[in-house]
């Protein structure tokens, strides 16, 4: 009996080892072809996004759009080499992303990488790309500080940061609509703090009156003391710099306190179905900014949407899918600048100095690698739905916003 069972375990061990060897062999073979084929006609790009895990829908759609652009470029014959993409699924996990980044930088053919929906994953991979001196273009992670003088010029970002949204928001509300008396409410998270700081500065620059600032803990449900304060301050507009739950409660309780005559506006964090659901009829007339350009508004953008639809992908276009497509266009543009033999070092310079006009407007980078393209558009709640402001009854004058 003993002998027999030992024989079986030995057998299993052999099978297991064989399986491991075969697996390793496959990997080795893969690496081998990369190493062997010194053919100068292959250039590789790294692409990272969460294709599995909680953000898989957004991550997979971004991958689809990115590959769509690369395939089109390869088919166009504009490049004297074939562009290959190493697709890494970071699963929204920093450690998985870091391992993927190692894999990308280990490949000699890689000249640039792009990626990230999650800022936390980006924070984990940035040091790896920096050390390998391979440029990383971020298309979807929006946390402040990912682009910085320290990370320049290796790290660039084509998506606007959360704080950058404040500028177009202020332009529309203050310059166009004329709201001058403000009250700021935000939360104490880094997101809220960053928004408060930026918007406070904008108010000062534009010569507006800031009648009060209140920061709330995340999870605050009772805004009534603040609302009384806003009421007696004489503010004509309330800026909300946090996320959706607190925003909808604040708007709801303002409505309850009979303060529909005060404008309510917020950054993109409040643009959500939850705002409508919790706010119910109180949500009416609230404004929110959304970064980017509505792709369907331009012929190039519409073409992208049509092509994507024709591609038959199972994941729908998400908010950052156009940005992933745009990232591909920026990298392709940079590759063109580098001639027939692109290197990572050449790509670093080519990307930071690039000027690319794609489906989201024209992208250039500032002195620390952050996009200058802060195009954004305004949304308004109308009859329980978020509607593009320009198409709303508020724009036509059928309905009116509170007096400035």
């Amino acid at each position, binding site marked *: 009996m003993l002998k027999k069972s030992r024989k079986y375990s030995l057998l299993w061990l052999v099978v297991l080892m064989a399986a491991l060897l075969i697996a390793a062999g496959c990997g080795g073979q893969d690496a081998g072809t990369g190493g062997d084929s010194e053919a100068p006609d292959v250039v590789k790009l790294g692409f990272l996004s969460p294709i599995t895990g909680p953000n898989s*829908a957004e991550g997979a759609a971004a991958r689809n759009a990115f590959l769509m652009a690369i395939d089109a470029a390869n088919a166009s014959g504009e490049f004297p080499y074939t562009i290959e993409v190493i697709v890494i699924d970071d699963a929204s996990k920093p450690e998985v992303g870091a391992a993927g980044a190692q894999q990308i930088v280990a490949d000699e053919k890689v000249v640039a990488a792009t990626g990230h929906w999650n800022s936390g994953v980006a924070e984990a991979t940035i040091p790896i790309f920096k050390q390998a001196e391979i440029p990383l273009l971020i298309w979807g992670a929006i946390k402040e500080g990912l682009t910085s003088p320290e990370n320049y010029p290796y790290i660039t970002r084509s998506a606007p940061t959360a704080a950058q949204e404040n500028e177009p928001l202020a332009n529309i509300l203050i310059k166009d609509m004329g709201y001058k008396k403000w009250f700021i409410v935000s939360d104490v998270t880094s997101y809220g703090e960053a928004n408060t700081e930026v918007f406070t500065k904008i108010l000062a620059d534009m010569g507006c009156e800031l009648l009060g600032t209140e920061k709330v803990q995340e999870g605050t449900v009772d805004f009534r003391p603040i609302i009384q304060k806003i009421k007696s301050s004489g503010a004509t507009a309330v800026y909300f710099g946090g996320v959706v739950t607190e925003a909808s409660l604040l708007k709801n309780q303002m409505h309850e306190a009979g303060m529909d005559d005060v404008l309510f506006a917020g950054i993109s964090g409040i643009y959500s179905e939850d705002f409508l659901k919790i706010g119910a009829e109180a949500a009416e007339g609230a404004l929110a900014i959304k970064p980017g350009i509505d792709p369907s508004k331009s012929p190039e953008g519409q073409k992208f949407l049509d092509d994507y639809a024709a591609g038959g992908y199972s994941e729908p276009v998400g*908010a950052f899918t156009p940005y992933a497509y745009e990232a591909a266009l920026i990298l392709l543009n940079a590759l063109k600048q580098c001639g027939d033999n692109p290197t990572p070092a050449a790509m670093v310079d080519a990307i930071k100095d690039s000027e690319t006009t794609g489906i989201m407007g024209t992208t250039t980078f500032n002195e620390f690698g952050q996009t200058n393209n802060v195009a954004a558009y305004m949304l308004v709640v109308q009859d329980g739905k978020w509607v593009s402001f320009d198409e709303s009854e508020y724009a036509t004058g059928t309905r009116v916003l509170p007096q400035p």
Partner: protein
Amino acid sequence: MELLFGQIINAILLGCTYTLVAIGFSLFFGVMDVVVFCAGDIAIFGAFSIMGAYTILASAGIFSVLPFTVAVFILLLVASILCASLGLLTYRFSVKPFENTSALMPLLSTIALGVVIKEVLGLVFQRVVNPLAKAAASGGEALAVQGGRNPQAMPVLIAPDGTITERNLIIIGVTLFLLLALFLFLNKTKIGLSMQAISQNKDLSRMIGINVNRIVILTFVIGGVLLAIGGFLVGSYNTIIRFDNGTMYGTKGFAAAVVGGLSNIYGAIVGGMLLAFVEVFVSGYIPNGTAYSSIIAFVVVVFFIVFKPEGIIGEKTVEKV
């Protein structure tokens, strides 16, 4: 003047919600000498069970068959039964097993139970739709960071067609009614008197023939019902409920109970109101005070623990034996 009046109303309403949770703490502390830290979570569980029962009953069309008040009564009954059961479970699995150990053990076990209640609520009332997809649609990663478990809109069951003032009056009225009922119950019924006796002297209570176990169990049941109604008022006042609200209400309720003297339910009322007034007035009158309102409220609590540990209206009855 209008500002002052408005803030006073705000403070009273907030105080009502704190008071009911604080009384829960006081009742449990009174009979068991332990801090049942999941009291806030039990209250929020009550609010969620009302919301859940509402969703089920409404889809069954009960509101078109029964008069509204009867339907609301049924909802409260369901929530009360569920919360009373949860109170019993708390006692049976988180308090009783540690009866003869250090007071730290039931404290820890009820904190743990509170986490369980909270997380289960978060899981059960998760959106069917992946909320992260929506967060993405809004263009902000910040939303995704907030997590998938969203707040739930509380059905408007208090004064559904009434004004805000009416709703506020009902909240204050229900709280007053509960306090009065509790006062009568504690002082006029044998069970209530037994609860008081146990909170003053457990050994003596046993000696004079009170069935202490039975009364303790009843206390957890009654406390559960009280917290269920408290949770209902909290949810109705805030218009939404979040699965993790219990932590905040638990902490505030506990703080209020400490200010009031922990085992003294009248102290809990004063403590709840004091905490609410401090918070509202710091928030309402100090520039950017909201960020500090909780801090200042807790400083007040620490002050009481240090300088008046017997509570705001606690008497110094040191019985020399």
